């Protein structure tokens, strides 16, 4: 056990708040490190000691199953003491502000705080008030950097590269933190990025994000190597942003017919949790072209890579 990864990559920043500002070298360094953890995670003995003695708090202001589980496993496999806090059941309800919570936790001397919050910018606000490392596990509609990294890791394993690929991101771009982080990462890595959605689900000004914009799946998926579907949340359906689930599925749901507009070897992704029959058809989701399960596996490896690379930059490391 405890075979050290060959990569000695250090993420020399105290916080990972978003993909914004991450260089191509940073991303490649993290993806290389993640590759090594994929192998480690497939062994019986998965435990390493690089975070031994470190305290990691997963502070989730918004319910999450896979991201929280993934960060918990990642921390534990690296030897950290991991504490999960779901704040929607705790003192925030009693009127304690986000900043009070940050100050309280900071006094307990954690080494790493992983934060998810329903409001854009909330993780940055919290990060300003604590001394430890902070990782954004999703803030509102802003960013979700580890999701973008795991998407990149999954694509790289299957296509051997990201540069030069055509990646179509489809669905609720307006409210999606995954879309924002993915767009930034894929652009940094030299992919050609498209967003495909009805105009009501596109943020005004999105054309200045360095993406091609399509309102039609045939046009948007044409020649795509990767089709990334986004979740459409219940409250956006039924009249507020789109008229109905059936109309949305008819025009934007990924089924075999629409997938045929993409390249024959196109691969399908989804950050989860999926709404089968809303944005994606079960046959496509479970097909051989789908990478959705692999994304979950990559999630643990990428989060281990982020924790490892950031911990190498912690005091006394």
């Amino acid at each position: 056990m405890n075979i050290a990864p060959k990569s000695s990559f250090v993420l020399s920043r105290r916080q990972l708040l978003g993909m914004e500002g991450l260089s191509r070298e940073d991303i490649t360094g993290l993806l290389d490190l993640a590759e090594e953890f994929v192998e480690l995670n497939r062994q019986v003995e998965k435990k390493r000691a690089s975070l031994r003695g470190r305290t990691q708090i997963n502070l989730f202001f918004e319910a999450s199953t896979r991201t929280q589980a993934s960060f918990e496993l990642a921390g534990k496999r690296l030897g950290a003491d991991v504490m999960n806090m779901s704040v929607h059941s705790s003192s925030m309800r009693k009127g304690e502000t986000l900043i009070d919570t940050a100050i309280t936790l900071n006094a307990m001397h954690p080494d790493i705080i992983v934060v998810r919050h329903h409001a854009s910018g909330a993780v940055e606000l919290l990060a300003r008030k604590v001394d430890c490392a902070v990782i954004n596990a999703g803030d509102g509609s802003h960013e979700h950097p580890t999701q973008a990294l795991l998407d990149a890791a999954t694509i790289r394993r299957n296509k051997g590269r990201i540069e030069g690929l055509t990646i179509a991101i489809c669905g609720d771009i307006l409210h999606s933190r995954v879309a924002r982080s993915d767009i930034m990462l894929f652009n940094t890595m030299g992919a050609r990025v498209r967003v495909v959605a009805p105009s009501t689900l596109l943020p005004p000004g999105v054309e200045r994000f360095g993406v091609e914009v399509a309102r039609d799946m045939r046009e948007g998926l044409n020649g795509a190597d990767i089709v990334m579907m986004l979740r459409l949340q219940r409250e956006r359906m039924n009249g507020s942003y789109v008229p109905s689930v059936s109309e949305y599925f008819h025009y934007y749901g990924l089924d075999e017919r629409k997938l045929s507009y993409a390249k024959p070897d196109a691969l399908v992704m989804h950050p989860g949790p999926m709404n089968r029959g809303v944005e994606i058809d079960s046959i496509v989701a479970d097909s051989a072209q789908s990478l959705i399960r692999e994304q979950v596996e990559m999630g643990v490896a990428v989060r281990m890579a982020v924790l490892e690379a950031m911990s190498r930059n912690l005091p006394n490391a």
Partner: protein
Amino acid sequence: MTMILSDRRPILLANARIVDPSRDLDFPGDLLIANGVIREAKKGIGAAGVPEGTDVIDCRGKVVAPGLVDMRAFIGEPGAASRETFATASQAAAAGGVTTIICQPDTSPAIDDPATVDYVLRRARDTAIVHVHPMAAITKGLEGREMTEIGLLKAAGAVAFTDGDKSVVNAQVMRRALTYGGDFDALIVHHTEDPDLIGDGVMNEGEFAARLGLLGIPKAAETVMLERDIRLVGLTGGRYHAASVTCTESLEVLRRAKDAGLAITAAASINHITLNENDVGPYRTFLKVTPPLRDEDDRRQLVASLADGLIDVVMSDHNPQDVETKRLPFSEAAPGAIGLETMLSAGLRLVHSGELDLTKLLHAMSTRPAELLGLPGGLLRPGSPADVIVLDVDMPWVLDPNELKSKCKNTPFDEARLTGRVVRTIVAGRTVYEYV
């Protein structure tokens, strides 16, 4: 008794640059104040020509101008004294050169009946060091449904009618308020933002909001409501004032209405003429205001419209918010910024950058709002009330929020470098603030 007398000694502001925007005058001279009234403003009164016991204040290199009349400020009384009181607001006002505060009715309870107007006037008289006049609500409880007692409220001392930062969505209610208010020559001041178009938006819609992952508020939310109002003014002949316009599209609408001869005036806030959406930067909640800060193009158009008179008034939109309502994620934070104390210094940025001349700026902050509200201030004519400021236009300073007199420190000019500040404020002939 002697105390009061010495307080009210005549004052000669000597060797100043006298700027009276009401008469477009800008000349070197002296200004004499006695018995709470401006006696004369002319060249060469000199120390010899003043009554015995006059305080002669040398104002060499400084500007003497009418005190500012701030047409839109939220004060926490009644109901939110922890945010601001008449006492603290008036101290902030005095330090910023504001000699008349027009307070907003979106208090708790709302200023929507004559007894509350009376309470506000008495409370202000007893605790404030500058003049305070309230606006009253257009609709009872600011609910947008039933008209308030416009006649009685006006008689009690309400200088205009507004539902604060809420729009009267029901066009029929607005029509009736304009029609009925017209009989009393009441000024209807309206915040024009369609709440449905605002939706969950928290900042100006566009690329910048999209990048921050924040939902945007389209400019159309403002323009749609303004267009509607202008149709209603045309229908009713009421007196109407757009409380806070922020974008180029609204300016076009305004220009058409004014060209058509309608009785319409408009204000812009100091925030919208000096800041833009990029100042929000990394989710700075002190820059969250309503309507939201727009883009730089809009800001430039607002300033140009101020210069050519399309925009009548610049106001502070003073809105104290404390830590509990501001130290939150951007989308959850309350909108609003304080401004009484900084409005003139911030506005001087435009003068120093050459975008606006000093007389125009002072006209929009004093003469014009006084005219619209029928108040006696905003000018330096002999015989008018001695609400006067002395201004060092070139003094550089850095804003330290801890030195602000407002109870809340939510200033968008936190740590800003400013040039020019008020060094003396005189209200009714008495010095209420002196910068030392």
